[in-house]
């Protein structure tokens, strides 16, 4: 059938067609929609794991059990899953295992733009890189075949422009016969003690050689000979930009970016006058080509930072681009916390309390932005609590009190729990605010162990954070309603003052949760223009529903957009003049 599919939808379809039994992952842009689409297909057990390491370990288990398994994550997720990944390379697989890494050149929604092609070389496993949705589907299927033929995990690398672009894709029927999974012991292969692992390492080096030979014959590494004065080696999305901007150039398109078909590359190099590598981010292909003694031009003309675009490729090759210039400075439009977002009042309270906030990743990272401006660090998921512990270790007691870590429910379950255990075990006096909005909101509202549901829509339990935190050894645990501003402010100031680890848990759900009965909309609020003095106290919380009218009264006045207002009443409590009331 012919359909327009996104790269992520096509990977999901490819996994289905390949007969995948188990799919596990952790959400992360741009990878999230793969698993969200896998659940459309029958006979695949798909689940959100609490983090990427667990996701990969679940996939490894399924593979050892003999089923085909898929693990999905964003590029930084592979850092979390790296520990099992490197040893999985040694054990190899039983059922085919494919790990999808969705990279984010240009940092559209990430904290770094690391190039995960380096993982393939580092872990000594093959990597495929599709250039459009059709290839996402076909390469996913092929990856499972390679995995089983060479007894290796295979990485499939996409980038944002592949994952989130749609193109016309032809789908096929699923493969018909795969061996039925069953338990079989093979300890020398799967128990990686030094004696066994030493043996496996030599096997892995042999495997790499075989894969390199296979790369020479692989159809997805293909040369397209056109004008011989320019030859370009490229892969992934860069291939499309090369075809777009240098339509006459000869191209060696690599579908497998590790290991490289060096013989074919040498042959291609011999046929063209000048050889280029066009690749995003690191000179990954370029360095290997150069190391084998072939002259090539790459990062001398192409940027290492950011994604490529047709315009950037044109610029590298000295072709004029037709972009117009306008010099006007326009107001930017960054994303904001939603009206009614339960994170808002917490960050306003932190701002007022003068706290030094070690932050973390989630919607609440938007608390960094003005006017809330209440986040001082954000490194990676789960980092905030450990950072707080470390900072307090170097500060004097009165300074230590200022340190507050904030963390969301999904992030806490991902990698915050162990850091909190360290904080209380090693006796740091910091305060931790657990922003429990009952969902993984930032990536588009995925279920997690705090939401009470699974990816496949089954009802599950809800983690009881207060009990969890107490059992880790925290004695001072209190819950607050973030819609009650005074109580939130009081809890924060009291706990900051306490010379022991303490945890504050907020209890309001994300306003975007669609399931009925979770988030309840209140009465939209209204500003009485007669009473409003124009003091601007309400606009300091940065709620998109509150609009400042410059031309009203002497100083200006606030109005509330009843379409946007969810009736959380945080602004109502901040108005000393009682000008904000329920809209009747």
């Amino acid at each position, binding site marked *: 059938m012919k359909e*327009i599919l996104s790269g992520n939808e096509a990977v999901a379809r490819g996994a289905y067609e390949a007969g995948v039994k188990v799919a596990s992952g952790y959400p992360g842009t*741009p990878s999230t929609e793969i698993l969200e689409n896998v659940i459309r297909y029958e006979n695949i057990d798909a689940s959100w794991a609490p983090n990427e390491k667990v996701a990969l370990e679940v996939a490894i288990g399924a593979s050892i059990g003999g089923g085909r398994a898929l693990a999905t994550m964003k590029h930084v997720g592979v850092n979390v899953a790296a520990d099992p990944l490197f040893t999985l390379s040694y054990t190899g697989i039983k059922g085919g295992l494919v790990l999808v890494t969705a990279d984010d050149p240009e940092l559209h929604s990430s904290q770094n733009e690391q190039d995960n092609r380096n993982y393939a070389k580092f872990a000594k496993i093959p990597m495929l890189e599709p250039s459009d949705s059709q290839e996402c589907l076909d390469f996913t299927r092929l990856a499972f075949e390679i995995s089983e033929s060479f007894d290796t995990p295979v990485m499939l690398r996409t980038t944002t422009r592949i994952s989130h672009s*749609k193109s016309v894709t032809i789908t096929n029927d699923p493969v018909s016969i795969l061996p039925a999974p069953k338990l079989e012991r093979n300890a020398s292969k799967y128990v990686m003690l030094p004696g066994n692992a030493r043996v496996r390492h030599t096997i892995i080096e042999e495997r790499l050689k075989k894969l390199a030979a296979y790369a020479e014959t692989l159809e997805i590494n293909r040369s397209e000979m056109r004008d011989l004065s320019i030859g370009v080696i490229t892969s992934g999305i860069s291939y499309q*930009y090369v075809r777009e901007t240098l339509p006459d150039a000869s191209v060696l398109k690599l579908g497998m970016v590790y290991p490289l078909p060096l013989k074919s590359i040498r042959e291609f190099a011999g046929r063209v006058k000048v050889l280029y590598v066009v690749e995003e981010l690191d000179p990954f292909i370029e360095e290997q080509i150069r190391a084998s003694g072939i002259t090539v031009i790459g990062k001398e003309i192409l940027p290492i930072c950011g994604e490529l675009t047709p315009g950037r490729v044109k610029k590298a090759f000295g072709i004029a681009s037709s972009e117009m210039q*306008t010099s006007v400075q326009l*107001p*930017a439009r960054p994303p904001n916390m939603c009206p009614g977002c339960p994170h808002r009042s917490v960050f306003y309270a932190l701002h007022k309390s003068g706290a030094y906030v070690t932050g973390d990743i989630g919607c609440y990272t*938007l608390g960094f932005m003005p006017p809330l401006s209440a986040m001082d660090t954000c490194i990676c998921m789960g980092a905030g609590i450990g950072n707080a512990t470390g900072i307090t270790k170097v500060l004097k007691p009165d300074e230590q009190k200022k340190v507050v870590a904030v963390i969301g429910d999904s992030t806490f379950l991902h990698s915050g729990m162990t850091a909190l255990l360290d904080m209380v075990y090693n006796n740091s006096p910091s305060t931790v605010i657990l922003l429990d909005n009952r969902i993984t909101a930032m990536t588009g509202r995925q279920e997690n162990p705090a939401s009470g549901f699974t990816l496949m829509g089954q009802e599950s339990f809800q983690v009881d954070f207060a009990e969890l935190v107490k059992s880790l050894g925290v004695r001072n645990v209190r819950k607050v309603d973030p819609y009650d501003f005074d109580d939130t402010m009081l809890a924060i100031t009291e706990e900051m003052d306490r010379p022991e680890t303490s945890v504050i848990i907020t209890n309001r759900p994300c306003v975007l949760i669609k399931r009925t009965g979770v988030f309840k909309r209140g009465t939209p609020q209204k500003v009485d223009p007669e009473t409003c003095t124009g003091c601007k106290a309400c606009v300091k919380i940065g709620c998109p529903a509150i609009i400042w009218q410059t031309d009203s009264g002497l100083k200006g006045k606030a109005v509330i957009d009843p379409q946007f207002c969810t009736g959380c009443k945080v602004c109502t409590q901040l108005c000393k003049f009682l000008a904000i009331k329920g809209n009747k």
Partner: protein
Amino acid sequence: MNNSIVTNILLVGVGGQGILVAAEIIAEALMLAGFDVKKSEVHGMAQRGGSVVSHVRYGEKVYSPIIPEGETDILLGFELLEAYRYLPLLKRDGKIVVNNLKINPLTVSIGQEAYPEGLSDRINHFFPDGRMVDGVALAKLAGNVKTANTVLLGALSRLCGIDEKFWVSAIERMVPGKTLAVNRKAFELGRSS
């Protein structure tokens, strides 16, 4: 429309305006009409009131899913400031259709910055043939304010040179049953506006 060249449509606006769905319908209609189609956008941070951009390209064979800088043929603006922001990506002889609507960025809502004045005049200065559409008013006329994106689709549809039946089937495929009738109406109002 000449099949051997690629036509580029850029949709710009504010998160929550239904831009991604509109782009989806356009891509579907063009595929039904027999073109190769690619569409690209960035999810994630784009939600929550941020600026949203979607690229749709069609022709006999399309390579890059994003439009080469400065080669947009048609700019479909769902909001004035966003339309103005992306003008530099439009070809000098490109076409522009803009929803006559202002949505304040947060810095403007809280009085830190001003919403630029006279944007529609400035757009008209660069692109005298630019069309302003009153999407909200027409959507209300169709029976639901939320169909403003479909009104804009209707206005755009006249510039794409494919038969109306492809638009109708694309809308039928992509729009949930209970709002189909209002959306069809909104599309018609936009198309004849």
